[in-house]
């Protein structure tokens, strides 16, 4: 019998020690001067490292991203980047400049076109496009970072970090890195003697650097009520009366579009008139949408847990600590991983929008020439099949789908779309662009955002299709065609079958719900401008400059 191979069991720890020694050898302590950041990065990052660059939906470690992109590709190369959002030009520069060559990510909104080009030129290898929760999970499995570059609001002399209201992904990243022999470097907006609160303890953090400018934050969740259309008001009325009220949806998540902003702004008016206050929309997994302010002020909302924060909402959130999760210091604590978990397992409904939907109800926001990913929507917009607690909405949906003897419920997954987008692009299509995109990317699967078999309802200006009640693929298809209006897909419907579906309540038109489309005016919106939102907030909401007209 052979003796067991002798093996080094602490190579990660040793590697970490060598990296820290190289930094110390350059005279670098825990607090790094901004002008020496490249020295530090070149000392602690090795070719082939897996590096997590904190790019969130909103908060960006922009100084560290730009600094890494400015490092010498002869010293740092072959990096494998893991990050949830590819938002900044510098994120893509890493690949163009030859520092990195592999990417695992979740969302790349503004950089989607550049990313697609690099993929076609084979200068970047994409591991996978993940959902947020999935990526966080893999941080603790097979994508654990060697080095994490993160953003925090403030550091103290020891290196404790205060994250401010935009916690977002930071806890997940730091925990995975710090406890698996990795190096954590934080850019901070300010150094304080005493932090308002400690969000990350100093011994999980190796280096801090005071960035020349505060980190960039994108106001991603601000929807100007002035841009909400009458058609969106009509769809919101139908959704409230035909879904929220009927299922008694109390725990939910909203997408970030104008369609759902319209619902938020109809709660204090239309929904209140229907007597729904206290009966719907009490508990939310939601970023602090400014358009939710009127519903909060009207007493609709009991609790909101947030993935991140929103520019201009800090003072309002702080003053509404019964509703939002706030620290003893008064400022909000958000957390993307926990809020995603709440959205997946503790919500009874997700409602959002999409750019395309096919006849099976599959939907995607992927378009040709862009690789964007979907962030959290695929998790929020899915029915987790595992065991969970029962709630009235969940049970009702489950029984609609499987009959009175159903042994599990269903999460409501609602897609809300106008049949045509701008420039008369039909939302309902025979085949998603995702299939062409799959070929272009050479991917295993088409980039579908929400799978049709998870979708429970589709709301369009033509009505509501309840897919739970469909009993065959043909019925589903005709239910979808039946609310697809004057798109080619809609015009090809089987009229008799659609009328039958309407008789059975599977398709419901506005008039079936007792709604006159001519009542759908913007006068129903509790706020019709950003300034109205400021007034509702008692002056606590301070919108970013670009959303003001005063």
């Amino acid at each position, binding site marked *: 019998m052979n003796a067991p191979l002798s093996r080094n069991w602490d190579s990660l720890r040793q590697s970490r020690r060598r990296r820290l020694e190289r930094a110390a050898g350059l005279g670098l302590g825990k607090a790094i001067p901004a002008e020496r950041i490249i020295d530090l990065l070149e000392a602690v990052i090795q070719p082939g490292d897996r590096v997590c660059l904190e790019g969130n939906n909103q908060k960006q470690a922009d100084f560290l991203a730009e600094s890494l992109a400015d490092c010498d590709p002869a010293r740092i190369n072959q990096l494998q980047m893991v990050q949830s959002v590819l938002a900044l030009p510098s994120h893509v520069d890493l690949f163009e400049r030859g520092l990195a060559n592999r990417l695992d990510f979740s969302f790349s909104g503004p950089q989607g076109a550049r990313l697609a080009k690099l993929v076609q030129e084979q200068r970047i290898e994409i591991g996978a496009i993940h959902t947020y929760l999935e990526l966080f999970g893999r941080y603790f499995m097979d994508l654990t970072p060697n080095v994490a570059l993160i953003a925090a609001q403030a550091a103290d002399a020891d290196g404790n970090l205060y994250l401010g209201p935009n916690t977002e992904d930071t806890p997940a990243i730091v925990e995975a890195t710090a406890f698996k022999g990795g190096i954590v470097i934080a850019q901070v907006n300010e150094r304080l003697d005493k932090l308002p609160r400690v969000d990350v303890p100093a011994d999980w953090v190796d280096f801090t650097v005071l960035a020349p400018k505060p980190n960039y934050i994108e106001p991603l969740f601000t929807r100007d009520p002035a841009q909400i*259309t*009458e*058609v969106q008001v*009509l769809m919101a009325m139908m959704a409230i009366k035909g879904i929220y009220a009927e299922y008694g949806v109390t725990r939910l998540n909203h997408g970030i579009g104008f369609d759902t902003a319209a619902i938020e702004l109809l709660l204090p008016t239309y929904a209140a008139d229907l007597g729904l206050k206290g009966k719907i929309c009490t508990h939310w997994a939601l970023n602090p949408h400014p358009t939710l302010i009127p519903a909060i002020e009207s007493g609709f909302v009991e609790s909101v847990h947030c993935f991140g924060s929103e520019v201009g909402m800090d003072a309002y959130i702080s003053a509404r600590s019964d509703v939002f999760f706030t620290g003893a210091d008064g400022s909000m604590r958000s957390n993307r991983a926990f809020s995603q978990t709440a959205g997946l397992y503790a919500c009874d409904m997700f409602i959002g929008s999409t750019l395309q939907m096919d006849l099976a109800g599959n939907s995607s926001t992927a378009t040709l020439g862009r690789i964007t990913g979907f962030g959290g929507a695929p998790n929020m917009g899915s029915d987790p099949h595992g065991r969970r607690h029962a709630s009235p909405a969940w049970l009702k949906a489950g029984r609609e789908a499987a009959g009175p003897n159903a042994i599990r419920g269903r999460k409501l997954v609602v897609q809300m779309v*106008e*049949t*045509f987008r*701008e*420039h*008369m692009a039909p939302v309902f299509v025979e085949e998603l662009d995702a299939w062409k995109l799959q070929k272009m990317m050479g991917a295993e699967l088409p980039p579908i955002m929400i799978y049709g078999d998870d979708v429970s309802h589709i709301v369009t*200006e033509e009505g509501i299709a309840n897919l739970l009640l469909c009993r065959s693929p043909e019925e589903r298809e005709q239910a979808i065609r039946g609310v697809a*209006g*004057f798109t080619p897909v809609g*015009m090809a419907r089987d009229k008799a079958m659609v009328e039958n579906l309407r008789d059975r309540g599977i398709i419901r038109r506005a008039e079936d719900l007792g709604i*006159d*489309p*001519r009542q*759908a005016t913007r006068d129903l919106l509790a706020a019709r401008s950003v300034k109205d939102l400021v007034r509702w907030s008692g002056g606590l909401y301070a919108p970013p400059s670009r959303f003001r007209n005063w």
Partner: protein
Amino acid sequence: METLDFRFASKPVSRVADPALCGVVGSGNLEILIKTGSEPAACRVSIKTSARGFGDTWQAVLGSFAAGHAAGGTEIAINDMGATPAVVTLRLAQALAEYQGGAQ
């Protein structure tokens, strides 16, 4: 720009306010002018639209309107700046209600 003309059979409508105007020629919007026409059981529609190539869609939207409402005896003139069928349908309903004297 494209000019389209249609004629649809439709039940006669009783008018109060003649003519009636609804909407504005703004991006994604349209204006609709309803006047009294010469055929009591037909609705004539003439359209000037910035979006070319949607004649079939207009025909379907207007046909559905003429079948679902009493709009006979009218002439409808439309100036369109890329309104979606949803907006067209809504404006038609508003304009017809206005034509009938603002009845709800």
